[in-house]
């Protein structure tokens, strides 16, 4: 095969099957193909959220390729995978945060129980009250701690009286494990807290509107190990009352907090299964390569 021929083959590959390109990107040199169909058990009975054949495009680039998975009630699902694999993009589809990006286009069906998330008639405000989000970098509002937590209930009119609001704020801060640390200075600025406290404040702010699902986009990536441990403990407690989807870079974290784990690779969902199974008996070579640290 001369060089011109090779180029042709390569270009054909680019145009015809992006998965071959995916393989070109791999650092291992092993002959690993992304499977046609997700390996493992991506579906559960009676799910809280049901996603089928989700494709996401940024302009002409496709970021998510036909992902189908379920998130069960009161379960913690971890989305893992190397950088740029689309896990955050997928997470942000679940409460339509991608709407704000003009060039972003979402295809497929996404349901929260029986509600089509991308139904044009659905008000995105209502959706986001049901599906809350915690971001990578702690982003408290430049307001007092109290106002940070009270913001959501206020805009949705969840509390009519000051005492009701006080109660919501206290409960949310208690659930986020922050009450004892801040109860004496609720009027001081939320931005004056430490990084870990700020992130717990953001979690308190999210659960103050009593969402059904909480989406977490690498909530610990900006935190030190002790703050991380606190947040992880918090996630386990929260899973008793909320359904949680968490994107994480740390496989240990996924193993510690989640019941089920989904492994994304270059926009494809390669494997999804019980967390134990994914980490002890991965069924796909790509998953195995990733969790054993051969690339990432």
């Amino acid at each position: 095969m001369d060089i011109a021929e090779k180029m042709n083959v390569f270009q054909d590959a680019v145009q015809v099957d992006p998965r071959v390109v995916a393989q070109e990107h791999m650092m291992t040199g092993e002959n690993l193909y992304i499977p046609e169909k997700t390996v493992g058990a991506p579906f559960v009975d009676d799910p809280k959220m049901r996603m089928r054949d989700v494709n996401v495009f940024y302009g002409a680039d496709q970021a998510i390729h036909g992902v189908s998975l379920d998130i069960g009630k009161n379960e913690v699902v971890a989305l893992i995978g190397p950088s740029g694999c689309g896990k955050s993009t997928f997470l942000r589809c679940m409460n339509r945060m991608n709407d704000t990006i003009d060039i972003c286009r979402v295809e497929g069906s996404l349901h929260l129980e029986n509600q089509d998330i991308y139904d044009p008639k659905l008000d995105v405000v209502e959706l986001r009250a049901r599906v809350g989000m915690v971001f990578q970098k702690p982003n408290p509002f430049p307001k007092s701690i109290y106002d940070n937590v009270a913001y959501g209930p206020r805009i949705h009119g969840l509390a009519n009286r000051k005492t009701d609001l006080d109660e919501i704020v206290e409960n949310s801060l208690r659930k986020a494990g922050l009450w004892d640390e801040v109860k004496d200075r609720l009027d001081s600025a939320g931005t004056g807290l430490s990084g870990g406290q700020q992130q717990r404040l953001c979690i308190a702010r999210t659960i103050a509107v009593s969402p059904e699902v909480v989406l977490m986009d690498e909530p610990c990536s900006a935190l030190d190990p002790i703050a991380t441990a606190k947040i992880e403990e918090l996630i386990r407690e929260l899973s008793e009352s909320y359904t949680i989807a968490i994107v994480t870079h740390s496989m240990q974290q996924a193993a510690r907090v989640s019941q089920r784990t989904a492994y994304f690779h270059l926009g494809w969902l390669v494997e999804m299964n019980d967390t134990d199974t994914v980490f002890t008996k991965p069924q796909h070579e790509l998953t195995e390569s990733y969790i054993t640290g051969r690339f990432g």
Partner: protein
Amino acid sequence: MSVTTEQVRKTLARRYRAEKRFKAYGICAISIGLLALLLLFTDIIGKGYRAFYEYSVALQITFDPESLEIDDPRDLEQLQYGNYEAVVREALQARFPGVEGREDRRALAALVSTAAGYRLREMLENSPELLGQTRTLWLQLNDDADMFLKSSEAKRKTARLSDQQQTWMLELEQSDEVRAGFNHSLFTRGDSREPEQAGILGAILGSFFTMLVTLALSFPIGVAAAVYLEEFAPKNRFTDFIEVNINNLAAVPSIIFGLLGLAVFIGLFGMPRSVPLVGGLVLTLMTLPTIIISSRAAIKAVPPSIRQAAMGLGASKMQVVLQFVLPLALPGMLTGGIIGMAQALGETAPLLMIGMVAFIVELPAGAMDAATVLPVQVFLWASSPEQSFVTMTSAAIMVLMTFLITMNTMAVVMRKRLERRW
């Protein structure tokens, strides 16, 4: 010693030299800037400080009914036509008894400002019992006599006073019958043909009303345009086109806005000439792009994490903008607004076009009264031939600069104080 270390040491001296050279360039540039500023200020202050005080002369004024041609000081008509100058003239002749002949007497009378007559009338109106009495009064000198006293020995020879007048002034000065006092009329009167009676209050009020109109229009419109363009406008060719044209608008020479104002506001809409309302409208057009551009920059600087946090909680677009973006962007917007206002305050060219360059003596009472503004007043006085107007020009510039520096300082202080960290 490794090869690398050796190599590093060799180049080190050169690198430090380059750094020192670079620093020297910077210090040079700043020094030139400061020097220019210093030169400007010393020149203006050196010329202008004399306008802030004025000389008056002590005269024995007798409110003689015959000379005044007034027998009843309560009769307003008589008061209005009273011959006050005759009284002043008599007082001067009493002080210098040897002066004979029409020419000489006229030269003597010319030493005192015509404003003295107005003052006597005012006194008589307020206290009619003065009629027939004699008082020692400090009366304002004419601008030439005033300038003569303000000048140094060497410059007095070139003063616009005749030799005889100079002798009289020297005599008054030696016997302490003249004194310097604060120039009240500078801050309490409008323009005048007589320099000693001219003031900048008219121009200050004109500037104030013009700025009021400009601020009331350009800030809300500019902020609204910036918010719409940043937050709500779809990104397409049309909005790109708008953006390019806003930047074009910022580059349009200001006199063009004056021509536009003349054609549209005065020609088409039939608004009156020379009024602060039209001036404000024209300056609004001129400052709009500045405010829009700085407001957009301020909105862009609001961290996206704050928007995402609010949207993630289910805040609507409107709530995100009103509760987070605007409060966080406000310091930047205000800074842009104040700088735009300062720009408008110093603007002359477009206002010449809409007739705010007229000679107006009355103080404007509102945005619909004919008025002039500070920089135009500077322009008017600078083109007047009287020697005193040269110092008045510098004084007006000093006042204008004080306002501009205050506004710019306010912008800096506001940015420092309102700036929030997140």
